[in-house]
């Protein structure tokens, strides 16, 4: 009974923290539109915000809720589990099950589609370390597949349509996605479902595209080549087929339509890029270190408060 109560209480805290933080993120993430930074930093911050509720709720549960229950809850107490912890505990389990199912389903769908695309694909020499395959089957023009062993798939039509420079710069765009682990990030999103997060994910997706454009381009000629590749490959995809992705991807403060991306590339200038500061990733370390230090100092009182809330929940 003690163990069951402990699990129910832990899961209750997990789901409460997760839902509160997720709601807060859904309400407040648009404030990032005022941020003047490089697209890579915008994408990093959006990703951080998207995974914060999941990460923070796991850390809080493991670091505070479980120890407070184990240390402060008398084992002899003949208390019931309570309806609220049981209900919320079941809700937490459902949330975890839903997240896991979404991850597995996305992986299985992707594996099925990629297996079809890879049939008969031949190696395509690009001069980079990343495996690039030329697909002779029906594939989107240029696709990055896989997470542990990422591969770039280039369709026959892409090779025929693009010039050598355009193809090279388009491949550099995909390599930037590999360096940012964007496919893995997409999968992490699947594990943390919450209503209203789609627009944040969409904005992240747009920022990630723009960041990859920035990473691929190093001068104005590159920018024009990438813009040209975008337009040429867009011609392969009729508007009819584009309706569904557009509905998913056009929300958010980073506009990511083809025309906006092309306009941005044509306006490329080196001085302008340097005016958009890249926020160093190590800047995340001090706040985390301070949070850990404060938690360490106030560990005892926080455990007590957590236990009091636990008692209130159980009653």
């Amino acid at each position, binding site marked *: 009974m003690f163990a069951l109560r402990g699990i129910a209480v832990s899961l209750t805290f997990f789901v409460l923290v997760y839902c509160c933080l997720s709601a807060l993120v859904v309400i407040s993430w648009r404030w990032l539109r005022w941020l003047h930074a490089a697209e890579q930093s915008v994408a990093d911050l959006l990703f951080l915000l998207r995974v914060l509720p999941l990460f923070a709720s796991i850390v809080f549960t493991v670091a505070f809720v479980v120890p407070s229950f184990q240390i402060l809850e008398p084992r002899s107490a003949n208390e019931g589990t309570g309806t609220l912890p049981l209900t919320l505990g079941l809700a937490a389990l459902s949330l975890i099950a839903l997240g896991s199912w*979404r991850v597995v389903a*996305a*992986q299985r*769908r*992707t594996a*099925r*589609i990629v297996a079809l*695309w890879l049939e008969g694909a031949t190696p395509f020499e690009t001069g980079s370390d990343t495996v690039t395959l030329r697909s*002779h*089957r*029906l*594939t*989107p*023009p*240029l*696709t*990055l597949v896989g997470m542990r062993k990422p591969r770039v798939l280039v*369709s*026959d*039509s892409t090779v025929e349509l693009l010039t050598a420079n355009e193809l090279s710069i*388009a491949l550099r*765009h*995909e390599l930037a*996605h590999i360096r940012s682990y964007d*496919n893995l990030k*997409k999968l992490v999103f*699947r594990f943390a479902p919450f209503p209203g997060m789609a627009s944040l*994910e*969409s904005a992240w*997706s747009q920022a990630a*595209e723009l960041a990859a454009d920035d990473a691929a381009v190093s001068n*104005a000629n590159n920018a*024009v080549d990438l*813009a*040209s590749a*975008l*337009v040429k*490959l*867009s*011609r*392969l*995809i*009729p*508007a009819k*087929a*584009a*309706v*569904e*992705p*557009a509905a*998913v*991807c*056009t929300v958010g403060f980073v506009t*990511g*339509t*083809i*025309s906006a*991306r*092309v306009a941005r590339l*044509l306006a490329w200038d080196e001085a302008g890029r340097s005016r958009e500061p890249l926020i160093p990733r190590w800047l995340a370390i001090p706040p985390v270190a301070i949070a850990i230090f404060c938690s360490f100092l106030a560990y005892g009182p926080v455990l007590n408060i957590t236990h009091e809330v636990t008692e209130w929940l159980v009653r």
Partner: protein
Amino acid sequence: MTRPLSIFGSNSTPQLGPFEQQVLQELWSRGSATVREMLADGKMYQAYTTVMTTLDRLYKKGLLDRTAEGRAFRYTPRLTSEELQRGAALDGIRQLLESGNTSALPLSYLVEALSTHDAQLLDQLQLLIEQKRRELQANEANMSAPKVKELH
């Protein structure tokens, strides 16, 4: 002898083997041809029956039209190279869309974020790109001109 089948109305664009692609390329360059005409200039070393079978297979896949000409058939491509590529890309995208929410898949595409663009918008963008390319070339020419003068 024209087959009324629309390949874009079917579930997928047919898959083509290397020789089928070669034959199709040859027909695109010629416009139309009989088996004998295709073998006449010596670009193909395959047997008459191999070419005939391949053409028949392409016809059955809906990629060629044919009309009787004496005891043989004259084959004509039903689609241009661009139309076939477009169909293939469309099928790939359709396959993706049918798999559910595309943003749910851990895949990255260069042209994922599509708006409901049309050919006119893409034409305008292409014009802007060409204009920018010319500007850059002019700038580069201007930059290199003084250096040439200095060398003289």
